[in-house]
């Protein structure tokens, strides 16, 4: 749990970028949730232990250079942008919004999801007007880049990390909502590995 106090939009952006870095550092992030005051990140690896073992790690995680290439790459594949795209696609009439209580379809019928369309368009027609609209909406609506940049340079080298043996009262509200934004990656592989039959899996390898 981080307390940057920079507002929800900046926290949202920071959460996206931090989970990306955590993934690269092998800490297997599961997701994050941002409020106006706080960011909570959950991971299937023990982040507290990693930070205790390597005191410089937090500083490297929070380096201001994350606003460069990380941002662009993350935006392109992020769930947030896909969600923006979904909103754009609905407004454009490309897909219908599922009404609550409408007949539930099976997975085989719901074959044209906005995610699929998004991936296909990104690959074959990256200048598509709906992608541009989603990007524009996302950068004004979801990112607060200027504020985030100021914060990162201000805090550089001055981050305090405390390992608590219980949840602090300030962190309780965010702990209740942990995992609002999902991160796909190594954590998915962990889930699959846990579900798999070990004897067969090992015999195959």
């Amino acid at each position, binding site marked *: 749990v981080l307390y940057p106090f920079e507002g929800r939009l900046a926290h949202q952006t920071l959460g996206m970028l931090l989970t990306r870095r955590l993934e690269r550092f092998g800490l297997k992030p*599961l*997701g994050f949730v941002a409020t106006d005051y706080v960011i909570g990140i959950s991971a299937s690896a023990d982040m507290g232990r990693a930070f205790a073992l390597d005191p410089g790690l937090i500083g490297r995680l929070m380096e201001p250079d994350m606003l460069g290439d990380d941002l662009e790459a993350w935006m392109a594949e992020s769930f947030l942008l896909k969600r923006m795209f979904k909103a754009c696609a609905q407004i454009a009439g*490309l897909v219908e919004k599922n009404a609550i209580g409408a007949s539930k379809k*099976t*997975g*085989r*019928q*719901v*074959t*044209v*999801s906005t995610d*699929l*369309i998004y991936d*296909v*368009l990104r*690959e*074959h*027609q990256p200048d*598509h007007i709906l992608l541009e609209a989603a990007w524009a909406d996302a950068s004004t609506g979801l990112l607060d880049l200027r504020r985030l940049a100021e914060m990162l340079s201000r805090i550089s080298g001055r981050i305090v990390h405390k390992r608590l043996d219980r949840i602090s009262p300030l962190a309780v509200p965010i702990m209740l909502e942990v*995992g609002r934004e*999902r991160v796909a990656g190594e*954590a*998915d*592989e962990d*889930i*699959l*590995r*846990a*579900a*798999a*039959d070990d*004897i*067969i*899996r090992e*015999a*195959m390898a």
Partner: protein
Amino acid sequence: VTAIRAERQESDVLTDGGLINLHGAAVRFDFSGVLHWPEEKLVVVADLHLEKGSAQASRGRFVPPYDTRKTLTLLAEVLGRLKPERVVALGDSFHDEEAEARLVPADLERLTALVGSVDWTWVAGNHDPLPPGGLGGTPVSEIVLGPLTFRHEPCAGLTAGEVAGHLHPAAKVGRVRSVRRRAFVSDGRRAILPAFGAYTGGLNIRDVAFKGMFERSRLIAWMLSDGRVYPVRPAEFLPD
């Protein structure tokens, strides 16, 4: 005794070479979603659903039309990696009977080249009951090779030696958070392949459509992931 029995059962699932024992044939459930039978130099691919995008568009649902290109690119990669001499397309290769005519020239060229590069068999599906016209390849309703019969639609009830598609199986697992992936389903006697096409969805393996088709104690869903498949037992299957 339990350990020995368990081990016996495992050796049943896999062959000595680490391949999967499917009714006496040593096959690989490839992470791309195709079935690979190295001994026969055979690759089986189910439910390509080519031109599904343009089919939707002709009914007034405008989705991007690049699904065929994406599917063919993936398939070309897989065939390049596995280097089969023979390919069986297990039905529903085209989304409808006019799909072949809607292929754009570049896609038509790529598909014709793929079909021409190997001994290609088109098994008929419910979406494409008529054999494809000018693409080459041999159209059949079903085909038998050694201990295995390849057909589009799996027959109801238990059976042995059948390889089918049609149902687009997918499995969902996970305790804290769930992961849903396309999957091969097999009890070692029959197998149902996941759909390969870019715009195809997956039907949860807990759906009633799969009921009674497999011997549950031997049932495994081989879930697709990057570069590998994960063998998962029914106790882990979650509903949607």
